[in-house]
């Protein structure tokens, strides 16, 4: 796992190529502290910050082929490189290293831009093809690894994180009001849009090819699901065995590393499954890590310790206090490079630090199981609301709402009439393509009431939900409602928030790489072909996963209902031990200076947070969203990283 940078065209700002590439690489050196390398030719250059995991002695990058006509800079892993290298060797390719980086070079020689189709992995890479005078950027199917790009004149520049682009002369950070509006609807900007105007994210499963003065961005893979009307029988036992075998293999190839692989253990079903698979199907020594909270509302240590005892792992945990979250929040925002409306990335930032301090560069996690095999409560919520909508006058149907979100204290104690009132939103639109998500997006959109007059004007009549609607694939309408909701989670929230702000960015801040067996594309494609009843059976989530993996888990874990990972929110920023920056960033003066939020309205929210102990979801989300935008402005817009001397940028 590493950081990549590069350019295609003339070197911007008239800098020597080496200076530019070194300056960009320095901005993301946290991703690859082990070694750095650059390569440049006339018209193109690549840089690399390396975290050595596979072939420690000879895997240096940028790497080239035999005649030095093709160069690659690569972040991530090609997990099936062993098998691919055998095939490539049979076709006459000569390997000088044992690294998966070289696999990319030879597969590109074979297949050109289609080389990605052969890869099973989490990757972002750039290929500089000197003879063809072509630059190719590629990103893995599910969006585990990031890559961003922008243009300076006719030159394309790219990097793993936007902060490296901001080090390029001529690239400035300016907030994109539409991106902010998207975050305050969906929790993330819709790619290719990013927080900053003119800087683009290569969407998951896409390839960019720049040549002959053209830039072509195309998908090479996408999520798809079984048609709603496809009634072809599926044998449950056979499906269970197939899922089992796929997960075993997905885990096995993800343990390929020349350094020890650890595991995050949340105490839930998914990370327990991945940990149990490592224990049962490999001889790898098992080292596990977890995060604990002071409040019983968030803490899962009881279940974590149950798995630790059951599997006999060597375990370390870190207690993440409200003060810790408040303290590290600005650093977390520096890494996420986008506004966030929950603090959840902060404890994961601390957890990655714990793994790194214990000498681990690679951790396996259960990420993706909820999206791929239907674990989230939003799927159950939509199912109950849809059932209720068919007989909206029924008094018995909405009683099922009681089964939702049992972990949300404020919600589970509600009297039935209020519970019904909250979930009634959108009940009159059972045919809306976003029926499952309209309540969540509607609630998130309440943050928009804090917009300043200027931001309101900039957003104008833009409608984020309609924008997303126009992007739905042609077959979306043919899928079962559960599949539609899964698509919104797996295709958008997962890469846009879970794998980025809660994933790559906070882990790579400490040079730790996450690996996710549930996001192996073979597992994802298999799950897409399953009928919905094998995923959400009645109101039992991840039905098939429980069936095929229950045998490896203590019964309490195997049967445990979904407990999503959550962390304390606004309480981290107020009270006697509140961090100093909060009052400053949310002061009328700073709000006016940044100009995006109304100082009076924000002042009322801050007053409420300070004076009352009861803060709801909406206020929490608004507070996090506003504070993170203010911090982003200070960190990137007011003082773009590239305008700082390199030493100063490194010391932040």
């Amino acid at each position: 796992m590493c950081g990549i940078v590069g350019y295609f065209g003339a070197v911007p700002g008239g800098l020597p190529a080496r200076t530019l590439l070194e300056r960009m690489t320095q901005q993301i050196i946290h991703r690859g502290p082990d070694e750095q390398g650059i390569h440049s030719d006339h018209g193109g250059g690549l840089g690399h910050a390396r975290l050595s995991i596979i072939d420690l002695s000879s895997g240096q990058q940028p790497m080239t082929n035999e005649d030095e006509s093709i160069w690659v800079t690569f972040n991530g892993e090609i997990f099936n490189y062993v098998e691919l290298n055998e095939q490539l060797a049979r076709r006459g390719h000569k390997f000088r290293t044992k690294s998966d980086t070289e696999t990319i070079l030879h597969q590109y020689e074979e297949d050109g831009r289609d080389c990605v189709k052969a890869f099973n992995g989490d990757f972002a890479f750039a290929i500089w093809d000197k003879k063809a005078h072509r630059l190719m950027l590629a990103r893995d199917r599910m969006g585990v690894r990031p890559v961003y790009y922008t243009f300076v004149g006719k030159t394309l520049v790219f990097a793993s994180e936007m902060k490296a682009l901001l080090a390029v002369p001529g690239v400035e950070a300016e907030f994109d009001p539409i991106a902010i509006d998207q975050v305050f609807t969906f929790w993330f900007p819709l790619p290719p849009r990013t927080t900053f105007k003119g800087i683009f994210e290569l969407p998951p499963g896409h390839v960019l090819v720049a040549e002959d003065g053209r830039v072509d961005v195309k998908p090479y893979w996408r999520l798809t699901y079984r048609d709603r009307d496809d009634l072809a029988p599926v044998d449950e036992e056979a499906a269970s065995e197939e899922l089992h075998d796929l997960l075993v293999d997905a885990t096995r190839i993800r343990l390929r590393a020349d350094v020890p692989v650890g595991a995050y253990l949340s105490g839930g079903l998914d990370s327990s499954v991945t940990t149990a698979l490592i224990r049962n199907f490999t001889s790898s020594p098992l080292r596990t890590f977890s995060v604990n909270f002071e409040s019983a509302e968030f803490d899962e240590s009881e279940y974590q310790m149950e798995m630790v005892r059951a599997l006999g792992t060597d375990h370390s945990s870190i207690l993440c206090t409200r003060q810790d979250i408040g303290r590290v929040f600005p650093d977390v925002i520096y890494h996420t490079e986008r506004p966030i409306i929950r603090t959840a990335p902060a404890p994961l930032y601390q957890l990655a630090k714990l793994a790194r301090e214990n000498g681990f560069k690679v951790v396996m996690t259960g990420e993706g199981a909820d999206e791929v095999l239907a674990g989230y409560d939003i799927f159950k919520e939509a199912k109950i609301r849809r059932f209720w909508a068919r007989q909206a006058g029924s008094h018995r149907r909405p009683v099922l709402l009681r089964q939702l979100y049992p972990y949300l204290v404020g919600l589970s104690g509600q009297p039935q009439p209020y519970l019904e009132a909250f979930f009634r939103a959108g009940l009159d639109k059972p045919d809306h393509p976003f029926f499952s998500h309209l309540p969540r997006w509607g609630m998130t959109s309440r943050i928009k009431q804090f917009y300043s007059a200027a931001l309101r004007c900039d957003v104008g009549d833009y409608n984020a939900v309609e924008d997303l609607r126009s992007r739905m694939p042609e077959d979306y309408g043919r899928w079962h409602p559960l599949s539609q909701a899964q698509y919104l989670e797996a295709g958008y929230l997962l890469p846009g928030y879970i794998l980025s702000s809660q994933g790559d960015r906070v882990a790579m801040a400490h040079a730790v790489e996450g690996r996710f067996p549930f996001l192996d594309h073979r597992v994802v494609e298999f799950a897409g072909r399953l009928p919905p009843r094998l995923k959400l059976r009645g109101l039992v989530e991840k039905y098939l996963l429980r069936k095929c993996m229950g045998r490896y888990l203590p019964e309490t874990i195997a049967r445990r209902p979904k407990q999503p990972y959550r962390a304390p929110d606004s309480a981290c920023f107020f009270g006697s031990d509140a961090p100093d920056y909060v009052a400053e960033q949310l002061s009328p003066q700073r709000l006016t200076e940044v100009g995006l939020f109304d100082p009076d309205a924000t002042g009322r929210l801050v007053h409420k947070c300070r004076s009352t102990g009861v803060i709801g979801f909406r206020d929490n989300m608004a507070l996090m969203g506003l504070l993170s935008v203010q911090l982003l402005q200070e960190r990137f817009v007011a003082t773009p990283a590239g305008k700082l001397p390199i030493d100063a940028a490194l010391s932040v």
Partner: protein
Amino acid sequence: MPANVETAIRKFIAHSFMYREGVDSLKDTDSLLDKGLIDSTGVLELVFFVESTFGVKVNDDEVLPENLDSIERIASLIQRKLAASPATCVA
């Protein structure tokens, strides 16, 4: 206890749930749920406000939209409570 019940309720709602919307636009009969002003925590805040400001006790089975979903309904609940237990009113 505030002299004008409706005014006190209106002020509380404005400060707790209406960061931006003009408070004058909210009619006494407007549904707080339909206006999107109340979420699950909002109900708890509202009950806490009624109990602590007016010195009355709201029972669990009274936490219903019929009693709490508009300024008028909340005022009516408070008046009924106060009338039923004058001792609490003096306190």
